[in-house]
Every structure is written in C-alpha cells, then in structure tokens.
C-alpha cells in the first residue's frame, strides 16, 4: 500500500493520483483552517476512484504549550497529526508525545538537520515518524538543495540507527507537484539501500492503518478490543 501526504482537493488531481498508482493519501489541513466538511468532500471524490483517504492536521506553532494543547484538541478529530518542525523546542516537544504521528520538515529554516541523537531516541520511543518532504527539496536551488539533501541523509542515518519510522511525502497542492510513487522510491534508493527504502514507503500506510484502527468504537486501546456478544 502506497499512501501519500498532500493537500489535493480537485477531482482531476485525485484522478491523477489514481493513475499514478497511489493507493490513498492523507489529506491534511493546517490547524487554523481545519474543517471536517472539507475532508468529507475530498473523501467522497476519492472513494469514487477507490482511493483511501485519511484526514490529517498539520500543527504550526512556536510554543510548546500551544503545541500540546492543539495535539490534545485534534487527536480525536482526525487520523493523522503532523507537526511542522524547524524550531528545536518544537521538534523536541513533538517527538516527546505519543499522540503525535509525524514530525514534518524538522530541518525547515534551519542550518542543521533538526534531528540529533537525543531527538532520534525520543522519536523511536514514542514512534513519531520523521517526514522527508519532497516539495521542500524541489523548491530549493543550487547549494540550498544540496544542503537539504545532506539533511535528509543525516536524518536517515539517525533514523536507521535508532529505528525511527520515516515517511516520505510529496506535499503536493496541485497536479504539477504530484509524483509517481516509483519516483519517490527511486529517490530514496539514492540515499539508502533498497530494502530500507521499501520500508520507508510502507511506513505511511502502517501509521494510517494503526490510527484508523484506534478510532473504531470497539477499540479501547491498541491490544484491547471489545467483541460484543449477541444477546439471546
């Protein structure tokens, strides 16, 4: 299963996702614009093309306290919670929370990769995935792009050492930014060995499936599930 993370809304763009062999995507919205109705519209369109859609919210803030409050607020309203990184204290606060699913762009606006061995270990313990955002890479030129690649490589080294889940996303907003999953896989093959690249491609679906399972009514927590008995 190949799951992308993007902001695709239009029908023709969703159709293109299907044609490029994606199995589904996480439709995320920023925390200040989150709307369940908007997600339902996208879901209705995508289901007609047999694509799985998961709702996501990307939280953008510079205060650790606000971050925790917003995570608590949105946890039960959507499948996936992403945190936009870049500030070191936000990166750290994100990887310390069990309720956070993905730390997005930890290197945003920084001159280092945003993740060190301490944060990698925390992310591993709390199973917070690190996102490799393909759009941020493509939007850079020259040395900036090379440096971003270096950040990706450093983060992948730490992720592999500490067994941190990693996801890769196109972060597409229109059809011109949509990428073929095989292109992403090929890109990953240039950074890491093929088996690890395959694992990275599958991580997004595993996270989505896990969160979708937890949202069922009969699931108390992962590992405890109510099976209702039929009354005679």
């Amino acid at each position: 299963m190949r799951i992308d993370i993007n902001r695709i809304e239009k029908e023709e763009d969703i159709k293109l996702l299907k044609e490029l062999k994606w199995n589904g995507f996480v439709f995320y919205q920023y925390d200040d614009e989150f709307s369940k109705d908007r997600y339902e519209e996208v879901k209705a369109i995508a289901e007609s093309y047999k694509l799985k859609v998961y709702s996501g919210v990307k939280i953008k803030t510079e205060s650790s306290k606000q971050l925790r409050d917003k995570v608590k607020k949105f946890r039960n309203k959507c499948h996936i919670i992403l945190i936009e990184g870049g500030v070191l204290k936000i990166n750290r606060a994100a990887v310390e929370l069990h309720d956070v699913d993905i730390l997005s762009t930890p290197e945003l606006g920084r001159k280092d990769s945003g993740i060190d061995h301490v944060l990698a270990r925390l992310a591993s313990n709390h199973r917070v995935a690190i996102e490799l955002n393909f759009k941020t890479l493509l939007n850079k030129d020259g040395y900036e792009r090379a440096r971003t690649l270096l950040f990706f490589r450093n983060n992948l080294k730490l992720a592999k050492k500490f067994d941190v889940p990693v996801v890769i996303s196109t972060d597409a907003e229109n059809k011109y930014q949509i990428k073929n999953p095989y292109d992403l896989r090929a890109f990953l093959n240039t950074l890491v060995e093929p088996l690890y690249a395959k694992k990275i491609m599958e991580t997004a679906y595993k996270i989505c499936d896990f969160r979708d399972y937890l949202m069922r009514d009969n699931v108390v927590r992962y590992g405890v599930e109510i099976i209702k008995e039929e009354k005679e």
Partner: protein
Amino acid sequence: MITPHNILRHELIGLKVEIVEAKNKAMIGIKGKVVDETRNTLVIEKEDGREVVIPKDIAVFLFQLKGCKVKVDGRLLIGRPEERLKKKIKILYPY
C-alpha cells in the same frame, strides 16, 4: 466490576478465556478458566480438567466478561496482579 476498560488492572483468576492468536500455533483454540497467574504466564484449566501454562507475551486472549468479550494482547498483561495496579500501561505500536 470488571469492564473492558479496567481489565488490564483487574484480577484475571476465575475468568473464562480462549486463546485466539499465538506465536505457537498449537496454543490457538485452548479454552478454559484462568486458575493462576504469575508475572509472565497464565495457568488455564481446560475443560477436561488439565492445566496448561501459557506465556503472556506470545498470545492474544479472549476473555469472557458479563455481556461482552474482550480480546487482549498478552503483552499488556505482563506483570503480577498487584503490580499491574500501579504500573503505567505500555503503549503498543504495530510499526
């Protein structure tokens, strides 16, 4: 009263149980009543009276409660009954 929400901290002795998943496939399908418990095992009395010792961390148990059944991953049950009361429940992840 034992409920699906507090079963992890509740006494398990006396409950009817069935093993629905296990790493050792020979254990799947064992039914009976929990008669004893240690930190890492459950002792189940089968319907024919024989007792079997089941490791907790390799099996998934289906407990019969009043009005419903609860499927519990054995890894969450690790710990002595009195210790489970005060332990923080571990969060499991499939990835």
